[in-house]
């Protein structure tokens, strides 16, 4: 059985003439000699499903993938926007069929009931509370059980979900596990469960739909400006500001483009938001392509923080902070989060771990006590340190001269050693000790050198490195 090529999916026409998934390719070819075969590409299927899922965000923000070929949409509270559940289902079906897709859609009270009905039933809308009646005639494999459980239940003569539902639960659970009962309850609609959406649920959404897709840059900008105004007034009414904003442009052909911006502090000022989005759009490596036009533009706040209406203070201090934060936001929008930085110091004596960088939009780190008195540390540090040739007194004298980048430096002033051992809780055992020296050459250039390893006391010959430069 191993190694046989099997049919994994068939077209409607192939199905009509008796082919089915699971058949070996040789058998299929024997039945239909001029069969057209394409290699199964799970990655491409997954990508297509992701794209459809992206497109389905236009109906509800709660979309989850269901296996390799299904989507679950939580339309709680959304259906009325599209003319009720039946109307919404019809519109969704028409929309996706328009893109050349075949689908079976079911609206039901619980995700499990909808899933069972879509995969094994006829489709349609299940009236509220009638899930049990609708799923009863379905085969037990609709519960998504393991193969052994299905075989076991079939041998016991329990063929449909209705048969199972009519039995007392305890013996079933004892034989097939609690999982069976849970699935049964959920499929029958007795127990509801929330889906796990693919994307973060936005805290606040403003959107515009267009009967006729818009493609002109001016139109898009105009519509977007109105959206920002909408969102801004929504945020103001809530007394909140956004830290992370997402603009989603839904193209008529199903492609969705998302633009994310982040701000250093909660913001709802329409002007600065518009400017940030403009910076971001200008900096895109592949620009926003309207294609056949956008039929939906949505602006969402992904992270919300309280923001009280501010009174402009008279001393100008708050204004100055605001201005700097604005500048940081603009630079972040254009250059990216990891390019606008603040220094961060850690409480560590390992010079490589003692300092780092933090995005300027990130919350400030807990204050780290400065080492006092200020230890002599270089202004610039190489990572990794540069190996050098050095001449020094054995065992721990400072270097007398050293060669770095093919230039020989005569040391006139030196200080050291400052002995820094590896942090035993961080590094592997046997990491050599470093002896650091601050040296100055005859031209006044100042360097930070270290010798890795101690003579005689640690294995291996010590090596010299240049770690940093002083001003």
């Amino acid at each position, binding site marked *: 059985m191993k190694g046989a090529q099997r049919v994994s999916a068939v077209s409607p026409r192939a199905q009509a003439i008796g082919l089915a998934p699971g058949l070996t390719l040789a058998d299929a070819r024997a039945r239909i000699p001029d069969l057209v075969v394409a290699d199964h590409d799970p990655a491409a299927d997954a990508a297509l499903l992701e794209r459809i899922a992206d497109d389905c965000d236009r109906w509800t923000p709660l979309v989850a993938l269901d296996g390799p070929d299904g989507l679950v949409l939580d339309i709680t509270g959304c259906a009325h926007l599209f003319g009720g559940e039946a109307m919404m289902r019809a519109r969704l079906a028409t929309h996706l069929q328009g893109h050349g897709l075949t689908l079976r859609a079911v609206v039901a009270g619980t995700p499990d009931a909808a899933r069972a009905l879509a995969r094994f039933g006829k489709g349609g809308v299940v009236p509220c509370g009638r899930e049990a009646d609708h799923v009863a005639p379905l085969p037990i494999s609709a519960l998504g059980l393991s193969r052994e459980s299905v075989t076991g239940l079939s041998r016991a003569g329990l063929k449909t979900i209705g048969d199972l539902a009519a039995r007392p639960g305890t013996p079933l659970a004892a034989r097939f596990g609690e999982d069976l009962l849970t699935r049964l309850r959920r499929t029958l609609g007795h127990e509801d469960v929330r889906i796990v959406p693919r994307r973060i649920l936005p805290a606040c959404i403003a959107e515009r739909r267009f009967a006729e897709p818009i493609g002109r840059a001016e139109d898009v900008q105009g519509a977007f400006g109105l959206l920002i105004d909408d969102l801004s007034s929504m945020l103001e009414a809530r007394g909140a500001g956004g830290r992370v904003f997402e603009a989603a442009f839904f193209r008529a052909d199903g492609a969705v483009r998302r633009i994310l911006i982040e701000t250093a502090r909660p913001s709802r000022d329409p002007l600065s938001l518009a400017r940030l989005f403009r910076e971001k759009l200008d900096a895109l490596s592949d620009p926003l392509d309207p294609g056949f036009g956008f039929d939906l533009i949505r602006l969402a706040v992904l992270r919300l923080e309280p923001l009280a209406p501010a009174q402009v203070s008279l001393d100008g201090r708050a*204004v100055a902070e605001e201005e700097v934060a604005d500048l940081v936001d603009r630079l972040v929008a254009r250059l990216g989060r990891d390019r606008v930085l603040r220094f961060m110091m850690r409480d560590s004596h390992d010079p490589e771990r003692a*300092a780092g960088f933090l995005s300027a939009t990130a919350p400030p780190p807990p204050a780290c006590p400065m080492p006092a008195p200020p230890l002599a540390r270089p202004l610039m540090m190489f990572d990794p340190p540069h190996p050098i040739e050095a001449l020094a007194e054995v065992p721990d004298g400072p270097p007398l001269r050293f060669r770095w980048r093919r230039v020989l430096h005569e040391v006139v002033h030196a200080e050291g050693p400052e002995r820094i051992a590896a942090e035993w809780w961080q590094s592997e055992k046997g990491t050599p000790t470093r002896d650091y020296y601050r040296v100055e050459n005859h*031209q006044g250039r100042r360097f930070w050198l270290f010798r890795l390893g101690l003579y005689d006391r640690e294995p291996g010959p010590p090596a010299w490195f240049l770690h940093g430069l002083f001003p």
Partner: protein
Amino acid sequence: MAVEQDVSALRRVLAGLEAEHLPGASSTFTLGAAGADGQLADGLPRGVLHEVHAAAGADIPAASGFALALALRASVRHANMAQPILWVRQDMLDSETGALHAPGVAGLGLDPAQIILVRVRDAEQALRAAGDAARCPALGAVLLEPWGEPKALDLTATRRLALRARESGVTMLLLRMTDRPMASVALTRWQVRPLVSAPLAAGAPGAPAFAATLLRHRGGLQGRTWKLEWDHESRSFRDFAPLSRAVVPVPSGRTVAQGGGHTDVRPFRRAG
């Protein structure tokens, strides 16, 4: 000789006339070193473009340190209230001189939290970021550190920066890696090289010392060189006179002798 004196006096008069048209000149910052400040009259103006050149490629750390010190002096406008400094640095510099190290910044007397570091890929991005920053009056100073001799940084670009700086009052400091004079509208152009410092006890390198030459100055002081030393505690320069204090040449590596007036030097244990 008399002719030269006349010319330089005339230059100073002209500079005085020019300075009246500089709104930025109303606010100035000093170096803190009595000798240099005395000759620079009221120090250096804020809200203009100053250039700092490294005398050689290997002097970039010294030039950066000098420019950072100038930025710190410029950013303290009111009593001890330092405004943020935006440092625009091109990525290439990290491989040439190493990445900036916060404790080293703190060692120069700056609060690392005062600095916003913007890392850019090329000179165009650097210019744009600096241009944006030059319009933000809440900043104390902007340090622009491009790599090499970018074509983008021409006369027009520097003029644009200088104009924006004049409007906002933000001091712009442009770090250049070449000693070749480039077209620019900078008000002052400094060339910086390090000097052998006045050693501390036991021959340890002392406070960073620089030889700063004014290559260009509207006030007619070009050609002047000052020897300066940066004091991280008072956050100011002081005149550097390496021979003014008694320095006993102690071979490095020996235990610390009685430090003359340097109580901040901690004796180190002779290990091994």
